């Protein structure tokens, strides 16, 4: 056993030193670079640039512009991966009933009172991260992950019954998530459909108007940049991510007895 521990330690240390040598000798390129890479330069130049209207996304946040405009197909597939993982988790926990009685136990009064004060702040911060995702650091996923902390705190502090008492059911959450995903798909094909109706040309996931496809999403909200589909996708991703994570949380905090019963009834699959 002792010889094994020694071997593990030596191999991990040599791995660490080898990785450090690769980085130090420039295996990933010179870091820190003294100039921008070409692709990064063109993205930064066009992310908010009213003087080159065929390339710009009207988004002050270049990361949000890359995510939902220049490489939007990537991000749609990423949302699909998250959806697949949540569907897989739902399959693992299939057949679990919701608890018959919503007995509230929870932690002490101090913890409960301070959590009551924190939860509205979390919700506001999460929504503002997504709504301002194209103007400041943040975005739909970041906001959604922060928003999903609120139900996690509720489950930890007030026990899972509090979520059911508030009228939230796993089935409703799943439906709301399907709705948000459907709206994401509809937004991505909104411009080609509208262009087909109007007899013009349009591209899937198009944001701003191009030279041969003049239709565009709204670029300005009065005098604030709106970034068109970046804003809409951020908002829908906020809903999809926060609801999906809350759904997983509800499944994983199911009571032991309910899970035992559903596992026992599953012998067909074994």
């Amino acid at each position, binding site marked *: 056993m002792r010889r094994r521990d020694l071997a593990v330690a030596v191999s991990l240390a040599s791995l660490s030193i080898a*990785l*450090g040598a690769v980085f130090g000798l420039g295996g990933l390129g010179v870091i820190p670079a003294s100039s921008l890479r070409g692709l990064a330069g063109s993205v930064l130049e066009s992310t908010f640039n009213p003087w080159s209207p065929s390339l710009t996304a009207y988004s002050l946040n*270049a*990361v949000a512009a890359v995510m939902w405009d220049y490489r939007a197909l990537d991000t749609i597939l990423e949302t699909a991966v998250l959806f697949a993982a949540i569907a897989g988790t739902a399959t693992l926990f299939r057949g679990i009933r919701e608890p018959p009685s919503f007995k509230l136990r929870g932690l002490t009064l101090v913890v409960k009172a301070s959590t009551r004060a924190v939860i509205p702040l979390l919700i506001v911060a999460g929504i503002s991260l997504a709504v301002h995702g194209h103007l400041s650091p943040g975005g739909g996923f970041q906001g959604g992950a922060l928003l999903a902390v609120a139900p996690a705190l509720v489950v930890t502090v007030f026990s899972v019954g509090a979520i059911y008492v508030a009228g939230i059911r796993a089935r409703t959450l799943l439906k709301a998530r399907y709705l948000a995903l459907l709206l994401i798909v509809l937004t991505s094909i909104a411009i080609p459909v509208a262009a087909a109706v109007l007899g013009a040309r349009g591209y899937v996931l198009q944001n701003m108007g191009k030279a041969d496809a003049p239709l565009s999403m709204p670029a300005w909200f009065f005098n604030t940049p709106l970034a068109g589909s970046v804003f809409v996708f951020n908002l829908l991703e906020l809903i999809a*991510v926060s609801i999906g994570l809350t759904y997983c949380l509800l499944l994983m905090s199911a009571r032991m007895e309910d899970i035992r019963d559903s596992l026992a009834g599953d012998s067909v699959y074994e």
Partner: protein
Amino acid sequence: MSELPVAIVTVVTTVVTVNIAIAIYGIFSRPSLIKKVIALVLFTDSVNILAVIVGFRIADPFPSPPILPEQPAKPEDIRVFLARSVDPIPQALLVTAIVIGLAVSVFLLGLAVLYYKHFGTTDTRVIPEVEEAEAPK
């Protein structure tokens, strides 16, 4: 002025290499399933930090985040932004990587919860023994 970015990169890459070694140890050598998942998350985050640092750059007088600070922006603002901002593309790809890491860890944690409910432990050394004891003679 270029000493500070070099120092930042050195410190971060050192921490990342040590973290990767710790995470690999956790994944392969710790018996608890929960600790394996924690180590996997640590591994993902270390590699993510490494990718962010690849997008870091030396700028005069200091590098700035890839977010245009001026609104309404004038052409000069965009030129200054271009001269200072770090690379936004690794950061945008990392959001994708983080989401996929989250998806994987949600699924693995679900599996770990079910293991615990079924076997009464998350210790991988114990699970085969329980299975043997439960197997029909």
